[in-house]
């Protein structure tokens, strides 16, 4: 008699859906775990000799400057803190855990552990940004080398590594566009930036923050705007174009060079949001399309870990004529030594306090070095192959469509629509996503606004195996089937996640909302105590 467990894991040769259950610790808020007197760590005592000479260092402070009562932080033992946070860590689905193709536009690829390990070295972690340059030649060289890499990948002439992430980089580019026109005395006249509805929303938001009026182009049936729409938008008020290509639909606008030309002819500057660079590394570049500025997201294309939402890196590239506006300092090399170059009188100034998220830059550098030109090319090609493979599987699911560019290949991601399934079953895209979480995967709809109805944006990247892509598509098919046969099950999902449906009512009501525990206690606990 054999006990072939594995046979029960398949039905008709297809693997059964995973019987996933997410960790559910029902963990109290940390303040509820507090026990008076507990210590998590002790601090070094001041030497008696210092005490003797100094006395009470707070004695000279006026009463208004002295803290009257210690802060009401939780009091916990060290293992208590650790246990609490390790439990919380288990209640997430990161790329280390799941087939994370469902977080489209985020490029959730593998973040190599070796790079994390290297960045943890004290020779990276214990560097102060103001150290004498002789003592930081190593990190300066990493930054300089990485800049050379970025120049080759994009064709741009200079890079600043300073912005902390993608949106900060987009803002920096908007500020550079502003400085460019200001230097020519045309800023008063040129106050409009053109973008598209499928570009990352930060293109509009950051340009608006920099003081520009935003003109948004809408796509035609091919999925990208008509050149005629752009021509209607440009005028003597045009400051520039800020655009993603391919856009978040995964569709590449083949007329991009003409778009850039039209804006150039009108006197504007063009910035290339390369958040979606993963499918085109080594294939096409900012330079040949005519862009003046570009930016990359290190935590997307360049594999650095997402960290629950940062730290990341947003590097900004410029052509020679625009380099003078880049944030200071840049990194320079004279053949012998590396140094910080502050000599940019036309710089827009500082975006952040220092020179960039150096440990993130180190990880990105290591990632590129492990792959080389051929490897980067392979990254792009496999990312695109994976995406089109997943696309073919998704389109076989009844109720799924991929609006725009029918029959055309996509680059590295696709924005699907569940509109047909919704019409048929009444189950909506968000509900499908929550049910997908019951199988251990993420699912992201779209940035606002939902121009594609009932959307779902999937980006496989190059990091997942064929089996993993099959698993994801199988989950989508499974949930679609459930939407038909057991819609209530889908509509009441998630069932196997850490928590159940959230009551959002309190979050919109000023008398009930609480972004801190103390606010919550004030508003909701008074009755109890």
């Amino acid at each position, binding site marked *: 008699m054999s006990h072939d467990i594995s046979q029960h894991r398949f039905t008709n040769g297809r693997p059964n859906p995973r019987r996933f259950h997410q960790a559910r610790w029902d963990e109290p808020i940390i303040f509820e775990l507090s026990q008076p007197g507990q210590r998590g760590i002790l601090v070094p005592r001041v030497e008696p000799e210092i005490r003797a000479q100094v006395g009470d260092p707070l004695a000279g402070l006026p009463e208004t400057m002295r803290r009257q009562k210690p802060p009401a932080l939780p009091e916990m033992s060290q293992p208590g803190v650790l246990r609490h946070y390790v439990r919380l860590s288990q209640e997430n689905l990161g790329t280390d855990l799941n087939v994370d193709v469902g977080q489209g536009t985020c490029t959730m690829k593998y973040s190599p552990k070796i790079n994390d390990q290297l960045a943890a070295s004290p020779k990276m972690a214990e560097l102060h940004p103001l150290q004498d340059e002789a003592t930081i030649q190593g990190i300066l060289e990493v930054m300089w080398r990485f800049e050379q890499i970025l120049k080759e990948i994009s064709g741009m002439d200079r890079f600043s590594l300073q912005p902390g992430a993608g949106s900060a980089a987009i803002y920096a580019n908007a500020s550079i566009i502003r400085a460019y026109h200001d230097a020519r005395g045309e800023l008063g006249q040129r106050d*409009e930036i053109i973008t598209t*509805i499928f570009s990352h*929303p930060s293109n*509009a938001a950051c340009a*608006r923050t920099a003081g*520009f*009026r*935003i*003109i*948004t*182009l*809408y*796509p*035609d*049936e091919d999925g990208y*705007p*008509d050149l*005629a*729409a*752009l*021509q*209607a*938008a440009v005028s003597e008020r045009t400051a520039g174009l800020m655009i993603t290509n391919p856009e978040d639909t995964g569709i590449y606008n083949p007329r991009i060079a003409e778009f850039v030309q039209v804006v150039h002819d009108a006197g504007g500057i063009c910035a290339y949001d390369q958040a979606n660079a993963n499918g085109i590394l080594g294939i096409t570049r900012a330079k040949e399309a005519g862009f003046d500025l570009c930016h990359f997201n290190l935590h997307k294309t360049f594999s650095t870990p997402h960290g629950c939402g940062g730290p990341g890196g947003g590097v900004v590239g410029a052509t020679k004529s625009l380099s003078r506006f880049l944030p200071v300092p840049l990194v320079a090399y004279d053949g012998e030594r590396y140094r910080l170059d502050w000599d940019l009188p036309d710089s827009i100034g500082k975006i952040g306090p220092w020179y960039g998220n150096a440990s993130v830059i180190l990880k990105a550098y290591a990632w590129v070095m492990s792959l080389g030109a051929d490897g980067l090319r392979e990254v792009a090609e496999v990312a695109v192959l994976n995406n089109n493979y997943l696309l073919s599987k998704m389109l076989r699911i009844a109720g799924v469509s991929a609006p725009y560019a029918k029959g055309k290949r996509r680059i590295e991601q696709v924005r699907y629509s569940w509109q047909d399934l*919704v*019409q048929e079953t*009444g189950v*909506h895209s*968000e509900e499908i996503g*929550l049910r997908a979480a019951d199988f251990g995967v993420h699912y992201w*709809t*779209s*940035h*606002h*606004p*939902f*121009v594609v*109805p009932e959307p779902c944006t999937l980006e496989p990247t190059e990091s997942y195996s064929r089996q993993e892509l099959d698993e994801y598509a199988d989950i989508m098919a499974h949930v679609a089937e459930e939407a038909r046969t057991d819609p*209530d099950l889908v*509509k009441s999902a998630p069932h196997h996640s850490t928590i159940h*449906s*959230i*009551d*959002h*009512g309190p*979050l*919109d009501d000023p008398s009930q909302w609480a972004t801190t525990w103390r606010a919550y206690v004030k508003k909701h606990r008074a009755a109890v105590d």
Partner: protein
Amino acid sequence: MDRVSTGAPPAVRKLGLIVNPVAGLGGRVGLKGSDGNEIQRRARELGAEPHANDRAVEALQRLHQVQGLEIVTYPCEMGANAVRAAGFAPTIIGQIAPGATTAGDTRRAAREMHELGVDLLLFAGGDGTARDVYEAVRLEQPALGIPAGVKIHSAVYATHPRSAGELAALFLQGRVEALREAEVMDIDEEAFRQGALSARLYGYLKIPYRSSLVQTQKVPSSGEATSLAEIAEDVVSRMEPEVLYILAPGTTVRAIAEALDIEKTLLGVDVILDGKIIAQDANEAQLLALLDEHPSSEARIVVTPIGGQGYLFGRGNQQISPRVIERVGREHIIVVSTPDKLHSLGTHPLLVDTGDRAVDAILTGYLTVVTGYNERAVRKVAADGDA
């Protein structure tokens, strides 16, 4: 995720349902519209089957998920049949003469259901039905249309019976709370049958809506009220002295008037100069006269797409005639629209049907739309018939 509120909902949710049994009757046999007993009789002679009932059943089937639902309706073909066919037990009110229902029945039904305090009034029909409901309840009753007519111009209808049911369910469960005013259009049936199309903005109904902007949790966004305030602020801040502003009908344009503390005619065209109203509910002749009186002034037309089809000119604002448009000039037309409204049009262009093909042609191409403070969108404009 929609703002799922699962905190204790009220025990009983009351839905009012009205079916206009003859809606769309004419269209299926090649007659336009279906108002009037004569048309109904003709249509039946030609073998037309009423389908409003089926559409209503399709919508109602979505409501089984709503706990504690009571459906109040009129007898027989004005609702009770559909409610039963969808698997519910109706609460029946009112009286009708079966087989000979009239617009008056619809109005009475709507009024009675409103007085009974229904949370939402669902009605299956077309533009005519919407007008009748509007007459009865105005802006006092949240309502929503189940499309069952021929081409519908009123914006109070969902795109599909199933979506009407779905949206009604979400609203009754408290999961969708937002209401907005949507246009009720009056199509002149007689003129329509003679091949001319004359549409008038008739009024507004309050309908629930799911904003395409509200779906995601990732970015804080602005609601409809904020959008309107931003658009108003943008247009007002750019208004110039000694320039005539011809304000077309529509809620977005009305918000601009409100920002100027001006009481705008709900359905008509008003004209302002230097922040003051100088004409209310003007017709074409009056507009042309005003343009004559101020020859040295420039003039602007402030217009917003009206109705469910996205008409910029030709449905509900014909007072702004081809002559007026020509006089003011394409470059002086200020188009305003909330982003939501634009997104609801999908990839369809904005439409124009001024009645003058040459003027239509001038308007086609791409136009810039004011969608917020310092925010514009470029949308395609097409002439009806070419689209």
